C-alpha cells in the first residue's frame, strides 16, 4: 500500500500536488492520501512506500510544523519527499532549509536512479542543504535537487516528478521490492 502525505495548507492545492500521484497509482495499486495533520502512526505502519508530496509556492505552513514529521526518523519504510517533502526530510535529519527561489524547467545533473541529466520542473521558494548522513545525488547549478540517506531508502527531490518525470516515482517504488 502506498501512502501519499499531503503537506498542503490549502485543500485546493491537493489537486495539483497530491492528485497527480493518486490518479497515476490508483489504477494499479492500493494508494491512500492523508494530510500530515491527520496522519497516525498506524497509517505509517500500514504503508509499504511513502511519498510526501509538495505544495504551492505561497504555502510555508508545513515549515511551522516540522515536529509533526518526526515519525520519519524511526519509520522503517521507503520514503520519498517531493519539494516541501524533501525540505521536511532534510530538516528532520538536521539539514538546513535555505531560501532558493526556482520556477520553471531546470537541468538536473548527477546520478538519480541511473539517470545522469534530465530536465525537471521546479516550483519552490525554499531549497535545502544535504544533511550529514545523506548523499547529494543531483543538483542544478548551486541548488540541490536530489538527496538520499546513506543507508536507508529515504529520498528527497526538490523538483516535481509528477511533471514529466514520473519515472522517478516508478524507480522509487521499485527500490522497495
Amino acid at each position: 500500500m502506498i501512502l501519499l502525505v499531503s503537506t498542503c495548507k490549502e485543500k485546493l492545492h491537493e489537486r495539483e500536488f497530491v492528485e497527480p500521484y493518486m490518479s497515476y497509482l490508483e489504477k494499479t495499486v492500493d494508494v491512500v492520501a492523508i494530510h500530515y495533520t491527520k496522519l497516525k502512526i498506524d497509517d505509517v505502519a500500514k504503508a509499504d512506500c511513502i511519498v510526501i508530496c509538495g505544495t504551492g509556492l505561497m504555502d510555508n505552513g508545513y515549515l511551522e510544523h516540522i515536529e509533526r514529521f518526526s515519525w520519519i526518523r524511526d519509520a522503517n519504510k521507503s520514503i520519498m519527499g517531493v519539494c516541501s517533502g524533501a525540505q521536511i526530510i532534510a530538516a528532520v535529519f538536521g539539514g538546513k532549509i535555505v531560501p532558493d527561489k526556482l520556477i520553471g524547467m531546470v537541468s538536473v545533473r548527477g546520478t538519480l536512479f541511473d539517470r545522469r541529466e534530465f530536465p525537471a520542473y521546479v516550483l519552490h521558494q525554499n531549497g535545502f542543504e544535504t544533511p550529514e548522513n545523506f548523499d547529494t545525488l543531483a543538483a542544478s547549478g548551486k541548488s540541490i535537487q536530489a538527496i538520499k540517506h546513506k543507508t536507508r531508502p529515504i529520498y528527497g527531490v526538490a523538483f516535481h516528478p509528477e511533471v514529466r518525470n514520473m519515472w522517478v516515482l516508478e524507480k522509487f517504488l521499485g527500490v522497495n521490492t
Partner: protein
Amino acid sequence: MRVACLVSGGKDSLYSAYIAKKEGYEIVCFLSVWSKNPDSYMFHTPNVRLTALQAEAAGVPILVQETEGKKEEELDDLRRLLQTAKERYGIEGVTTGAVGSVYQASRIQGICLDLGLWCFSPLWQTLPEKHLRRLLADGFDVIVTSVAAYPLDERWLGRRIDEVAVSELLKLQEEYGISPIGEGGEFETFVTDCPLFNQKIRIVKSRKEYADHAGTFVVEEAGL
C-alpha cells in the same frame, strides 16, 4: 479564501473555477486577458470576449485586460490585471485552467508570487479521459470553437462535446497522437453552460472560418 478565476472561456479554465467553488472557495470575480494576437503563447483567443457573458451568467464581475499579445510583454499585462484585482477586490488567490503547459504555469506562478497571491491550477496534470468524462458528468456544455490539427476538420467547429465526441477524441488520440483535451493547441472550446451559471448562454449568430485543417467557429451574437 477570496479567489479570482482566470478564464479564457474554455473548458479548462471554467472547470477549474468550478472545482474551486465546489471546494468552498469564494469566487470574487473572473479575470480575462483579451489578446489581439491570434498566435499568443499565453492566451487563447477565439471568442475570448464572450468571457464577459460567462461572467454575467455566473453572476460575478469580470476584469478584462487587453493586450497586444507580444511574447513576454503580454505578461506585464497579466501582472497589471492581477494587481488591479488585488486592489479592487481584495483577492488572495487566483485559479487557472493550466493542465500541462509548463510555459504558461511557470509564468503565472512567478507573477502571483511577486504579487503575494496564492496560485491554484486544480487541473494540473489531469488525466485527459478522466477530465472529459467529468465535464460531461458535472453538466458542462462545451462547444469546439477552433481546430488547428489534422485530422480535426470543419465538422468539429461548433460541435458540442458529448459522449460520442469524447469517444472520437480518444480514438483520434490512439490513431494520430492528438491530445483529447487539446493540450497541444489542437482545439479550443467555449462553455455555454455549467453549474456556475444561473442561465445558459445562447449562440444567436455564428460563422465558420476554415482552411487547411485550421479554423474558428466565430460567435457573432450571443445572449443569456
